[in-house]
């Protein structure tokens, strides 16, 4: 019986060899796809798509992004759409699993024939389809991720970043901390991937000699972070800079409470959505009596988008109105994140002209003066696709209901390296002046 097995194994090797004449990894550069096409555009619709985690562990935090964008597109369509066309926004569930992302993206591009991809979510996920999108000539606008790779026109000519670069953000926060807490002993608490390493690159430019402790966590392996927090406590740190997602910010804060450790928390924008933090704290503590608002009171954070509790901001008021009419659930900053993507896409589509092609959409994006709704300038030129270019620094003050975000420092912009941090200089338009629907 050994023989047939050997024969079969030989057959396996031979047949497989026959299928591949050259090296498996040797690929030729393909010629760029034709962009002067209007795939997905009909007389009365424009179909676009996105991949988002709608189920699974990651959906809890991010489901709201596509819901926010959907609500905004419903509003835009009710206003008459863009150049008389309704925007069909298709959301496919990828469960935050890159395998599924590849699958649903191919479904969107080849099955649904989308005009453009808007806000594909996640670094591990979206990075697996960015090559495919550029090969197929599909504009890839505003991925929902802060990775640096989206700002790489050479390699990904059709991709335009959205979220503020983690390094720029951390740099501005670090300078604020260095100036306003001159005696602080600093601890870094970060996610063990590009979120953490990019953030530390910025933090170190101003805080390197103040750091007394640093500890990371793995986002894929949910675990207690008590060890990290107690190492901060032992090192005598009195200020914790947290480059982390909301779940781990909340876990850190809870553990600090549990250990009687008091420190000033400074959390970057990805982890500091206060409505989300409040809900997470309640969930993890399993204690309704926990004074959640007091725990969050005084947290310093950065931001680049209008936020739920900026009640005087015209865009926040506008988003609240749209959400009341078209949205589901509670308005959170995550929902606003998606709404802003939708507004910006609609504006670009409008500027792309009566008969948009993929090329005219990209031209519109590259030549756009955005002027909002973000709080800082937005880079989407041929050379720089960094998205939101800076942050403002703010502090959460607990109060009635949502509490308020107190602005500590005006919006600043900077570069990734040793460049100056300068005030942002731009005119922000309100929703009434912003030309994004008929």
């Amino acid at each position, binding site marked *: 019986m050994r023989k047939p097995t050997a024969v*079969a194994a030989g057959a396996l090797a031979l047949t497989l060899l026959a299928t591949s*004449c050259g090296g498996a*990894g040797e690929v030729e550069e393909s010629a760029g796809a034709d962009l002067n096409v209007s795939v997905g555009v009909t007389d009365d619709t424009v179909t676009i798509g996105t991949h988002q985690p709608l189920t699974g562990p990651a959906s809890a935090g991010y489901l709201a992004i596509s819901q926010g964008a959907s609500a905004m597109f419903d509003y835009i369509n009710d206003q008459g759409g863009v150049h008389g066309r309704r925007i069909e926004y298709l959301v496919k569930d990828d469960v935050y699993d890159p395998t599924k992302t590849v699958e649903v993206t191919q*479904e969107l591009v080849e*099955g649904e024939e989308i005009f453009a991809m808007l806000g594909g979510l996640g670094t591990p996920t979206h990075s697996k389809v960015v090559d495919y999108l550029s090969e197929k000539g599909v504009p890839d606008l505003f991925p929902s991720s802060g990775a640096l790779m989206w700002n790489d026109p050479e390699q990904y000519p059709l991709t335009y970043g959205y979220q503020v670069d983690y390094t720029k953000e951390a740099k501005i926060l670090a300078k604020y901390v260095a100036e306003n807490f001159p005696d602080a002993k600093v601890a870094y608490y970060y996610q063990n991937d590009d979120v953490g390493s990019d953030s530390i690159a910025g933090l170190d430019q101003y805080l390197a000699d103040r750091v007394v402790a640093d500890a990371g966590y793995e986002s894929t392996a949910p675990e207690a972070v008590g060890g990290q927090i107690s190492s901060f406590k032992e090192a005598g740190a009195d200020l914790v800079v947290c480059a982390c997602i909301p779940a781990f910010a909340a876990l850190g804060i809870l553990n600090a409470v549990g250990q009687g450790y008091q420190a000033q928390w400074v959390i970057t924008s990805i982890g500091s959505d206060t409505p989300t933090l409040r809900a997470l704290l309640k969930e993890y503590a399993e204690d309704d009596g926990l004074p959640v608002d007091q725990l969050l009171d005084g947290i310093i954070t950065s931001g680049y988008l209008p936020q739920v509790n900026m009640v005087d901001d015209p865009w926040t008021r506008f988003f609240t109105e749209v959400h009341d009419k078209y949205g589901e659930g509670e308005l959170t900053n995550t929902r606003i994140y998606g709404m802003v993507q939708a507004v910006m896409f609609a504006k670009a589509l409008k500027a792309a002209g009566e008969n948009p092609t993929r090329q005219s959409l990209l031209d519109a994006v590259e030549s756009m003066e955005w002027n909002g709704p973000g709080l800082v300038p937005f880079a989407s030129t041929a050379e720089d696709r960094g998205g939101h270019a800076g942050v403002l620094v703010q502090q959460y003050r607990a109060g009635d209901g949502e509490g308020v975000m107190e602005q500590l420092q005006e919006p600043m912009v900077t570069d990734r390296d040793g460049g100056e941090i300068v005030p942002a200089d731009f005119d922000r338009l309100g929703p009434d002046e912003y030309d994004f629907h008929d």
Partner: protein
Amino acid sequence: MASSLRRDDPPATAAAPARPAAPRRRALPVLARHLAAAALALAAIAALTFLVGPLEHLRIARVGYLLLAVAGLQILVGASGQVSLGHGAFMFVGAYTTALTVLHAPAVPLAGVMVLAVAAGCLAGVLVGAATARLHGPYLAGATLALAVGLPALALYFSDLLGGSNGLRFALRGTPPELSGLLTDNQWKALVVWLTVLTALVVLATLSRGRLGRRMRAVRDDESAAAMAGIPVGRTRVTAFVVSAGCASLAGACEAYLLGTATPSSFSLALSLSLLAALVLGGLGSLWGALWGALALVYLEAAGRELADLLGLGSSVADNLPPVFFGVMLVVIVTAWPTGVHGALRRLGGLSARQRTPNPPSDPPSITTTGA
């Protein structure tokens, strides 16, 4: 039974002349039959890819590599009676072997990549199998569970080499230039995946029909009796584990080939568990069960999505309907037919056969392959 088992043991030289060419004469037609069936199946799938739209190509290929992973599990669970909750980890091995080979040695042909993936999977299978061969029941399940949870974390630990939680991505050759007008990249890749899968299935089916298959079933049914009959129980169990791990690894390599990515989050515990669920749903004990299971994994979820669209549900319900739909179908099928889809089909076949002939075959071969 005992005599038939003894016959296939390494024969003493003196015994050999008694039945000079018996095993060979019987085995070769089996292999030839399997190869013919596989060739037919491949032709059928090639024809199918021309009939359906480009979207289906990816799904057809998915069915292919999931079928292989479930078939590997079938050998382990159905034939040798061991259980593994960690087969996703072997797919992880195959996918990362492919990724690393393609990235660091792009000149290696695809066949070489696949062979390397099988070798890496078998090696992992030897290590794990040797460690777990003494474990039974819940202890074995627990050990393999640890594997499913722990192994993907390697990618985080060696993040420089394995890309951390963002994983690795790479480009692979698509349709050869000579065929580029005829086949799309996805169609080509689907065919390559199915060629690989069918070739591996031929090996599996031939192994199951042969000595190893009989030994595994003997060990599964009664270890003591098998040992008394001279079967090396430990070695048989480990061999089953190795074969099974090799299949899962090859399935992982096919997935990486198809999608051009390897990421730890793709090889979660959920994957390992759904492979096992698919096996139970398809039917334990037959490679056909693996096919039904793989089809269910791919198409039940798609059906759930379409059902959600049809019903026009709110997004919070619609998003969660596909996994619920799969779960409900699993429960319904296993309740209605405890032997899975294949068991049900075979009973139907048996009923009609009994109506035709007064004497039904008393013991239908439990592992069959006659094409898809």
